């Protein structure tokens, strides 16, 4: 089967999470992604050995999954000889991607001006922390940038600490936004023959991630910046409810017919058949009382019994699962959101996050997990960049490559 990004070569000079995820999207669809790493230790993501105090196991899933389908070259870019190798690679590439600090790239003579002079068709993509035109200079990690956007402060029950959206949540969003910018610039390049530079920052992506609530705030709805209690939502039919087991999420509009269906599912309790809840307007006005009344009913049973009753009554709802449930969810496996992949490091198949974007005729694929550090350095220098073996030996002697 053909690949959507066949023939696109990407220099992936990224570390940790956001940048590697961006290039992963491109690699999944067939781009030839060459990860360029420092010879000593490579991408810091290779060193991750525990997540939340849990050993990651015998294979490093942090690094290997987001760097799948990629090749690896180890080059010391601090050395002019190393930079020369990269320049040759730029001549042969369509995209340069980096999430290193702009000052670091400038220090290594890898600015847009320098690289586009070598290859005017180059798409030069960065992932800064706070945006290309920001004056802020300090380290940027997912959570410290997420903190600034306001997205954390509005989550959770009133009075509770702010809530982080999950490990790597903002990086993952910055990654898809970066990949999106890159394919857009590639589209323009294919039509006009011209490259350009682009930036998808962590801050910009995460502000967009807050779009529904942030836009409301900008329009004057100050409460959208604040925490809201589930006991006070305007439509009690679209809400979280506890059971004696898992929580459930009921998702129904505030309409008489839907309320009747919910009452049926709950066994027509007298407490719900009262005038105070009879119309949509009353249910909105008396929302707190109605939520408490529904909760008193849902707490009487386990989530499985309750879900069966809700399904029978045609009420749209889901149990609030945990990861142990989702990894067994057949729907996820059938759609390739989870996949098996062979892991060289442990010589067996492992379970990985699969392909969230499906293209029917040019589907993404996982050909290999992340590369070993520098595994393709020599072969790419010979086959792609035209170095002679003597030159490679000389560059090794100078420490430009290991």
């Amino acid at each position, binding site marked *: 089967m053909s690949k959507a990004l066949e023939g696109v070569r990407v220099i992936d000079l990224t570390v940790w999470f956001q940048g590697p995820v961006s290039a992963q999207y491109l690699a999944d669809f067939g781009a030839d992604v060459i990860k360029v790493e420092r010879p000593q230790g490579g991408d810091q993501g290779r060193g991750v050995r525990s997540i939340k105090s849990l050993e990651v196991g015998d294979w490093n899933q942090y690094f290997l999954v987001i760097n799948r389908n990629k090749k690896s070259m180890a080059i010391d870019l601090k050395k002019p000889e190393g930079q020369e190798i990269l320049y040759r690679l730029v001549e042969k590439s369509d995209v340069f991607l980096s999430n290193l600090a702009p000052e670091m790239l400038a220090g290594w003579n890898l600015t847009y001006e320098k690289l586009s002079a070598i290859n005017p068709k180059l798409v030069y993509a960065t992932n800064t922390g706070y945006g290309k035109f920001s004056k802020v200079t300090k380290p940027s990690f997912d959570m410290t940038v997420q903190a600034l*956007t306001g997205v954390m402060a509005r989550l959770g029950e009133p009075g509770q*600490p702010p809530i982080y959206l999950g490990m790597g949540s903002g990086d993952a969003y910055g990654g898809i936004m970066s990949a*999106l910018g890159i*394919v857009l610039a590639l589209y323009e390049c294919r039509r006009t023959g011209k490259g350009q530079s682009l930036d998808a920052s962590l801050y910009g992506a995460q502000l967009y991630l807050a779009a529904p*609530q942030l836009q409301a705030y900008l329009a004057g709805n100050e409460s959208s910046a604040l925490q809201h209690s589930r006991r006070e939502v305007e439509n009690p039919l679209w809400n979280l409810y506890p059971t004696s087991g898992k929580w459930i999420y009921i998702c129904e509009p505030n309409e008489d017919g839907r309320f009747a269906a919910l009452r049926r599912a709950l066994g027509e309790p007298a407490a719900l058949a009262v005038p105070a809840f009879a119309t949509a307007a009353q249910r909105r006005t008396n929302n707190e009382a109605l939520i408490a009344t529904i909760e008193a009913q849902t707490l009487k049973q386990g989530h499985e019994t309750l879900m069966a009753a809700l399904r029978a009554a045609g009420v749209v709802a889901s149990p609030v699962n945990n990861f142990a*449930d989702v990894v067994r969810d057949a729907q996820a496996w059938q759609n390739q959101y989870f996949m098996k992949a062979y892991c060289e490091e442990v010589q067996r198949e492992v379970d990985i996050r699969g392909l*969230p974007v499906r293209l029917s005729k040019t589907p993404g694929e996982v050909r290999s997990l992340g590369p070993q550090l520098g595994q393709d350095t020599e072969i790419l220098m010979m086959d792609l960049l035209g170095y002679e073996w003597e030159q490679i030996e000389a560059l090794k002697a100078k420490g430009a490559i290991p």
Partner: protein
Amino acid sequence: MGRILEDVTVLDLTRQFPAALSAAFLGDFGARIIRLDLLPTAPSAPTGRWNHEADLIHRNKLSVAINPSTPRGREVIRSLAAKADVIVTDWQRDELAAMALDYAAASAARADIIHARLSGFGPEGPDQDLPAIDELAAARTGAMPMLPQPGQPPVYTGAGAMHAMGQLAFGIVTALLHRLQTGEGQQVDVSLFGANMYGSALDLQAFLAIGHGDRLLNPISRLDVSNPMSGSVYMSADGRWVTLTMPDTDRWWPAFSGILGIPQDDARFDTHEKRTAVNRLALIGELEERFRREPADHWRRQFQEKQLSADIIERFDFPANDPGVYANRYIIDLEHPSFGKVKSLGFPVWVSDSPARLERLAPCVGQHTDQVLHELLGLSRQSIHELADAGVLS
């Protein structure tokens, strides 16, 4: 200044926020987005307030209003689809099929069409036709129970829907690139279910790999975080929260201990092992107590001065007043014809030569019906009037 997608016409058959915003995103980069509004539209009383949501998710679009209950209306809709390079939709499959707007019918009329759909749970499997509701997908994806503090209700963040928005636009542009090369169109599917998994990428992948672990299934108290200096939050003297991301504590400890007044060589905390394992809870207790001694602004100054990876947890007023946000056009000032100067969400990706732009706010229903039918379908003014008189258009 180029317009990256100026040769692309998109038919927008969307109802909900994420897919509608995907289409608007393509419009920000120059695609011609034709939004189909179905007649009769539900009557809505004017609120007198700015419809800020429409001016985000329908900006840079044209609106065509057509009544699908008439045969001629359906014919016009099909003709529009046949002229489109891309269909973006979040409709259910039976709705698309009923109007001959599913991939089979649309590609019969135009072989190289790109048919992009946001689904609830993906195109395969027993739940392929469940409604595309992000809360349902999020509830099923596993992250909600572990986000809050212990004993608190699960948390719905909405991040999955926004991941789907980005992934859908990425799938479309990737398919456009393939079409440019080969002339071949195809279907694109992104689901809220799959997108929610990407929103909780690391935790979920960790559980997939490890296969067990209470710390990945249940909430972790902020006073029991794995690394007191990373992923943690502490309250300051004025009730605002501080957050830290300094995973490699050896690198940061000298400067960090200094701003808190902890001796750098405090024997309880002088190695990474002691800070994150042996005396982890003691360090959390120490930080909890010391951060409460000074207000948030004090800590921010210290973090900035020492270049620490740490910050204050802000509310939306922070970005709304941050000059850097405007310099990057993440939020833009605009002059609204009815509401004067307003602020609106801008553009998350900066592209140097062909930047995103705001050319028009959300259209009124049917504002561009005549124009689009004339320009795109070549209908004469006369036949457009006849269709309007017959109640097919407005």
